[in-house]
């Protein structure tokens, strides 16, 4: 037999590879010995932080930058958290990572969807009567593209621990240890849906943004309610999974016993439970006791709001249990359970602070703060054990509490805000300052724990501003003749069903996105591709000329045409044609982001969501503080991952896919 022995050839190649590895090892080892800790405080505002530092209220930040650096950090366009964190992770703008907003749309149907991850379709299934058995599929898919910077570090032998990084669900799997953050769904598959129960017979059962209001049947001191899960995947005809609970209400005192599944707990009015298992029966057991399928189990926290005159109970969004490993939320799989073992079970949904419950007037500001405190404490309590177990390489740890609480509380410092009343908000003026003091305490703990050789970087994805005025892009497009509705007399209009697409040239979806209704791209597109650029320019000019009739100031200060102003990345087609940069103090209308067509272009922001950052990116920079000058300058989020890699003497980031740019 002639020719090469394939086994011997493989052995030789392996030996050569091992030799190369040995030769390269010193460089890798040097990188691996380095320690860099990055603390990400979502929404930390540079100007406000510096004011707090100047007032002596953040002494540990002062300590941090004593021999280091402090600078504003340019954010992404648009400055929204999933976009900004994806930019940080990949070192690329949205054209490179494919995340342009919280919400994207299917160009064919224009149906909006969450931008960072999507549930995968169930593949083939076998049907048996009313039941179906999936043979494949059914997971989640991360939509953020590009190479995360920790993958490059791991390839060079640097261990990385990446905790709660936004836009990283399902987890990348490339870090040594990671836990997913913003973008991780609750059991219903969204960003979090609470349930609110009341025995008030006049209370209307209804859906709110991020929540459901449901009845509680109260009779002789026994109140019964139902928790709703996702559709039962085992049934051909989809029906919601349900789990019943009972409240036994004491007739003399403001106290009740909650019974759900095997759990019983007495609650005083105004008291929160710990995490309680919520089980949904997917298939009834054979003969009543032989289990055929495991139940779907999540967990929720309950809050007995009041007992009299009506019984009111709040149930948090049902979270996946970190012990069960039902979702790909950590690397290795058991890491989430290990964390739970140390500090107890925790919110696994990406954005746990229930801003929607406050916005929907289900929780009062004080109750919301209590809930946010619970969520924030879980994250903070896990930090020190993680820091203690961190030996070398990179540790990234994300804190989201500051952002979500600032959204709801920042305007309590703004007496001129249209939603501000002394009665409702006056007592909460100090809340945001307290958030920054908490951040300062965390930085202090970190400085005490690390040695002199460790680089500590504190960064944020964007800043904050009071949001006083609202701009409805779809109302503006309609007013300016770019969007036509079928029935102008209809009260509530949406681009899903109410638009005459044969006479509509542009529409808005997402907080900052504006799309041209292009023929061949949109399902009912009418604008010829050759006319698209001229239309983009026309709309851009008009938007930049917009003056808010109440303030007399421009309401829009930047408008980006993504095709020309963004990098020519491979995912440009995913995003909008125009990204609107609202003037500081103005933001896009929330319902308009989901395609609603409001009656008025301009309105006062009267919601409890009183502050935001979805504005001109130059007006809301984030922060970059470090305990030593960084080896490589980072002026914006896009540069920061490269600068972190430079601390490990590694260059060549961002990683650009061949042929993509």
């Amino acid at each position, binding site marked *: 037999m002639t020719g090469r022995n394939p086994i011997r050839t493989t052995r030789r190649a392996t030996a050569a590879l091992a030799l190369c590895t040995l030769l390269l090892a010193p460089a890798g080892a040097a990188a691996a010995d380095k320690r860099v800790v990055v603390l990400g405080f979502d929404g930390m505002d540079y100007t406000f932080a510096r004011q707090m530092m100047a007032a002596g209220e953040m002494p540990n930040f002062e300590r941090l930058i004593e021999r280091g650096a402090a600078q504003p950090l340019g954010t992404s366009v648009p400055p929204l958290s999933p976009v900004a964190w994806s930019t940080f992770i990949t070192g690329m703008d949205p054209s490179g990572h494919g995340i342009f907003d919280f919400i994207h749309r299917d160009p064919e149907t224009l149906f909006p969807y969450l931008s960072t991850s999507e549930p995968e379709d169930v593949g083939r299934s076998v049907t048996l009567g009313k039941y179906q058995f999936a043979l494949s599929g059914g997971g989640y898919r991360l939509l953020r593209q590009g190479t995360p910077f920790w993958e490059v570090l791991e390839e060079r032998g640097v261990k990385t621990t990446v905790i709660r990084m936004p836009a990283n669900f399902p987890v990348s799997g490339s870090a040594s240890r990671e836990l997913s953050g913003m973008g991780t769904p609750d059991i219903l598959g969204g960003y979090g849906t609470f349930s609110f129960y009341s025995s008030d017979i006049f209370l209307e059962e209804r859906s709110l943004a991020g929540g459901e209001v449901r009845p509680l049947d109260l009779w*002789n*001191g*026994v109140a019964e309610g139902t928790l709703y899960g996702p559709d039962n995947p085992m049934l051909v005809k989809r029906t919601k999974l349900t789990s019943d609970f009972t409240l*036994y*209400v*004491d*007739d*003399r*005192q403001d*106290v*009740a*016993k909650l019974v759900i599944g095997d759990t*019983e*707990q*007495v*609650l*005083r009015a105004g008291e929160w439970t710990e995490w309680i298992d919520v089980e949904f029966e997917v298939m009834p057991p054979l003969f009543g006791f032989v289990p055929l399928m495991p139940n779907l189990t999540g967990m929720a926290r309950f809050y007995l709001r009041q007992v009299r005159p009506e019984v009111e109970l709040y149930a948090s969004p049902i979270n996946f249990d970190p012990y069960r490993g039902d979702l790909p939320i950590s690397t290795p799989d058991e890491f989430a359970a290990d964390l739970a073992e140390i500090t107890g079970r925790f919110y696994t949904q990406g954005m746990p602070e229930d801003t929607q419950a406050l916005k929907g007037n289900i929780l009062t500001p004080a109750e919301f703060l209590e809930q946010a405190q619970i969520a924030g404490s879980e994250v903070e309590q896990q930090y020190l054990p993680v820091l203690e177990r961190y030996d070398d390489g990179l540790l990234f740890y994300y804190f989201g509490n500051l952002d979500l609480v600032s959204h709801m509380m920042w305007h309590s410092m703004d007496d001129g805000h249209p939603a501000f009343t002394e009665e409702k908000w006056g007592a909460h003026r100090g809340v945001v300052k307290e958030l920054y003091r908490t951040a300062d305490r965390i930085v202090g703990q970190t400085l005490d724990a690390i040695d002199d050789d460790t680089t500590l970087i504190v960064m944020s994805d964007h800043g904050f501003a009071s949001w006083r005025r609202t701009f409805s892009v779809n109302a503006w497009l309609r007013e300016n003749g770019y969007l036509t509705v079928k029935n102008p007399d209809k009260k509530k209009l949406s681009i899903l069903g109410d638009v005459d697409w044969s006479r509509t040239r542009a529409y808005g979806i997402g907080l900052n996105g504006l799309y041209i209704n292009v023929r061949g791209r949109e399902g009912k597109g009418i604008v010829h591709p050759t006319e698209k650029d001229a239309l983009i320019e026309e709309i851009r000019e008009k938007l930049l000329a917009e003056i808010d009739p109440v303030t007399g100031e421009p309401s829009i200060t930047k408008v980006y045409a993504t095709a020309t102003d963004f990098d020519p990345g491979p995912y440009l087609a995913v995003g909008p044609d125009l990204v609107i940069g609202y003037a500081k103090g103005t933001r896009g209308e929330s319902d308009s982001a989901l395609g609603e067509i409001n009656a008025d272009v301009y309105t006062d922001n009267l919601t409890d969501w009183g502050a935001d950052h979805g504005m001109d990116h130059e007006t809301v920079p984030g922060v970059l503080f470090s305990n030593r000058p960084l080896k490589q300058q980072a002026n914006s989020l896009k540069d920061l991952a490269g600068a972190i890699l430079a601390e490990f003497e590694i260059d060549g980031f961002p990683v650009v896919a061949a042929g993509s740019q």
Partner: protein
Amino acid sequence: MSAINAALRPLFDLLLAPFRGMPAIVGVTLFSLIFGVVALWLVKLTSNPEKVDAAKRKVAAGLLEIRLFNDNLGIIFKAVGSILRHQAAYVGHLLVPFVLMVLLFLPLIAQLQFHWGYQGLQEGDSVLFKVVLQDDWQTRTGSDGADGVPRPSLELELPDGLSLASPPVWSPSEHEMAWQMRADAAGQHEVGVRLGDATHVKKIGVTDRVERLSPERLEAGFTNQLLFPAEPSLGADSAIEKIGLRYPERDVWFFFWRTHWIIVFLVLSILFALILRGPMGVTI
């Protein structure tokens, strides 16, 4: 049954005292060995080894027959009939020792369940403590419910080391009064439950050691005492049906497998019995 349990409780407390500070698997292993040996001894004492052996050989012969004549349906059917007949005979020969084992071991296993089946409360734990009354509690206590919804005058006498985290919730439909109770300090605590003139004591263990823990103290009754022997029953004429709390269940580690102690116990008992049947000269 109450008298037997009254004797067994201190006996098992004593027997298991050396294992209190050890992982539960240590005691489970040793008791599996003892139970395996006792089971073999019972079989040896009460069964006929020749008949057991003959039945086993007949079953083996039937299996061999099927293997040898697997192309002859008539022989296979006959062999299957023979196997079933001799299998039944085999079970019949071992029925006496089996029944004796059940009668002897059930109360003993019930005792062990309340040592190894639950974990004690930990300091800082909050737990639901409830008292369920008999359907006719009003008659028994002479309460007329004249002031509206009938409500028993139940009171708790708490020792140091336990405190109430909530006022009571009275559920008339369940005849149940429930409190949220907090474990403040380690120890075997006794809570007094006073209803009218009668006071019943309920033990609550706040401990991380393997100790006797009783989730429920029940009304009098043979089954109750058979299955819940860890505390004496409540008096026959008590208006209280049960007093209880929920301890977390304890699993034991068996190599890389974490499971209920009874599964490990059964597996190990069978294993020890199989290993020791030769040396002990027992046919099973």
